[in-house]
């Protein structure tokens, strides 16, 4: 397993443990394919699918850089391939929370090509898509290991404890994305780093801040500023990586405190019906 794969698999595990999981279920529209019922036996096939898609992405970027004029066609082909491969059904049904991000990044890539963006932009979006594909694969593999260990229970359908752990899992994912942002910053991938910080805030923290306001409004304001001003500011200024790391470490401490507060709030939850 490469370092990248290890990193994305770890990220996937956090999303999956808290998200809505439908292991081995056939899709409502019956499009997932029979292999999904025994997805743990098809991991090599899925791996091959991801490698094929990654290779097509590399060709697309290379062709775009060379100005071969076939980028749009290659994007269409990539989408058709993505829809056709078995991996598509697996990530959709087994690692559901990681499915939408793949489509989003496909859309972003397509948009960049349609808009005739600079090759560097197309390359970054292709990299983001590749990372999402690997993250999905990591998620499917994690599910397979849990299934083999007999650790997939009823909670995996989104009931009971898994639901109660939802906010906690979201905050864990936020911390993981901050780590990924620091790593991207360290590799001089500023746009990717900032995008990860934005995603962590808008798709993670913002969704859980509501009940935190009643418990500790100042803590929420502090984190809002850290996510939206301080951390992006350091990155744009080109601050030393150590400084960015220190900022993230401080934010992660605050996020742990948020988790504690949310856990206390969970105990006072009321019923819908």
């Amino acid at each position, binding site marked *: 397993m490469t370092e990248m794969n290890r990193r994305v698999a770890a990220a996937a595990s956090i999303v999956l443990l808290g998200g809505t999981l439908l292991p081995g279920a056939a899709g409502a529209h019956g499009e997932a394919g029979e292999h999904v019922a025994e997805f743990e036996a098809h991991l090599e096939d899925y791996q091959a699918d991801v490698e094929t898609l990654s290779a097509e992405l590399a060709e697309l970027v290379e062709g775009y850089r060379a100005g071969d004029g076939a980028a749009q066609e290659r994007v269409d082909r990539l989408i058709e391939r993505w829809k056709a491969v078995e991996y598509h059904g697996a990530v959709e049904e087994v690692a*559901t929370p990681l499915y939408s991000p793949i489509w989003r990044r496909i859309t972003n890539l397509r948009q960049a090509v349609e808009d005739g963006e600079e090759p560097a932009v197309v390359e970054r979006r292709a990299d983001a898509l590749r990372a999402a594909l690997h993250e999905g694969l990591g998620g499917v593999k994690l599910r397979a290991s849990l299934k083999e260990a007999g650790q997939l229970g009823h909670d995996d359908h989104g009931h009971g404890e898994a639901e109660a752990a939802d906010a906690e899992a979201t905050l864990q994912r936020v911390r993981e994305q901050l780590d990924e942002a620091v790593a991207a910053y360290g590799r001089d991938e500023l746009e990717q780093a900032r995008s990860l910080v934005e995603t962590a805030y808008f798709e993670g923290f913002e969704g859980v801040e509501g009940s935190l306001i009643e418990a500790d409004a100042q803590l929420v304001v502090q984190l809002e500023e850290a996510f939206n001003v301080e951390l992006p500011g350091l990155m744009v200024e080109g601050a030393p990586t150590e400084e960015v790391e220190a900022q993230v470490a401080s934010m992660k401490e605050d996020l742990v405190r948020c988790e504690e507060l949310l856990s206390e709030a969970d105990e006072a939850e009321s019923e819908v019906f």
Partner: protein
Amino acid sequence: MVDRRDFLKSLAALGGLGLSGAWGRAVAEALAADALPALRGDLTVYLGRGEGGLYKRIVEAIRERSPELALEIRRGSSSGLANTLVAEARHGGARADLFWSIDASSLGHVADEGLARPVPARLHEPLPEAFRLEAFVPISGRVRSIAYNPGRVRAEALPERIMELPDTDLKVGWAPSYGACQSFLTAMRLLEGEAATREWLRAIREQSRAYAGELGAVMAAAQGEVDLALANHYYTLRLKQGQPDIPLELAFTRGDAGALINTAGAALLSDSAVAADFVRYLHSREVQRFLAEQAYEIPLVEGVEPPAGAPAIARLEPPELDLTRLGDLQPTLALMREAGVL
């Protein structure tokens, strides 16, 4: 013109009456869940993540009471799921029957792509006329508000029209990078035009302080850093819930973007009867009460009280605006950049 103080007093007196009056009456009151048909069959819901998982709790509660319902849920950010739906539709057909999203702009995006089915008349029945939309079914509301510190600003010193704010010497806190603020400015652009909005933005830039989030702006008003904050209503309600003595009050402009009511809503994406019935559960008394109590959202159906501490929403005067148009954000962002506020 009604004096602002009298207006605010009348709002307080009318609190808890539910929606009516200015928005047109609903045909019917909200039903209790027990009065609704049981849900049976297959249903795939795309659920825009919102309010700390409260929406998911509602969906799971409906699942629990519907043993014959084969419910699949896909969760994600509202904008992300809207993009997914559009991508799926372009490349092989949408897979969802229903999209429940926290904001109207993502629903508008899906509707603009022709994915939303017309809303059946029976889903309009518990809604006031103003919320009987064709493209999606509004479920609950969030109101733009002026949060002010009564120790620093008298209610009568506040403008009744948002466009009059630059005519005052009040210092404004706001969060222009926030989606809710950008929706409000989009409403202003659509209602008042680009030139007036540009002028307003330039003026406000001179008398405002920008915060990273709307909560920060509202807290700044309470702490006296600014005179007032432009923000959604629930920040003030949540703060008052956690700190009952915090010096904050809510005020609303009248008939303009400053009183915009944005809604969470559900778009029907297939002809599934169970999808439409599912929406009726979202309009049930129990779900609407849960949203009001737990998320501080404004119930949109007749017969359910607004959240504790909420203003008398029955007499609010939101602008006449097709909410699906709030998805048209790019021209707003261009104006904001031009005016130097973004």
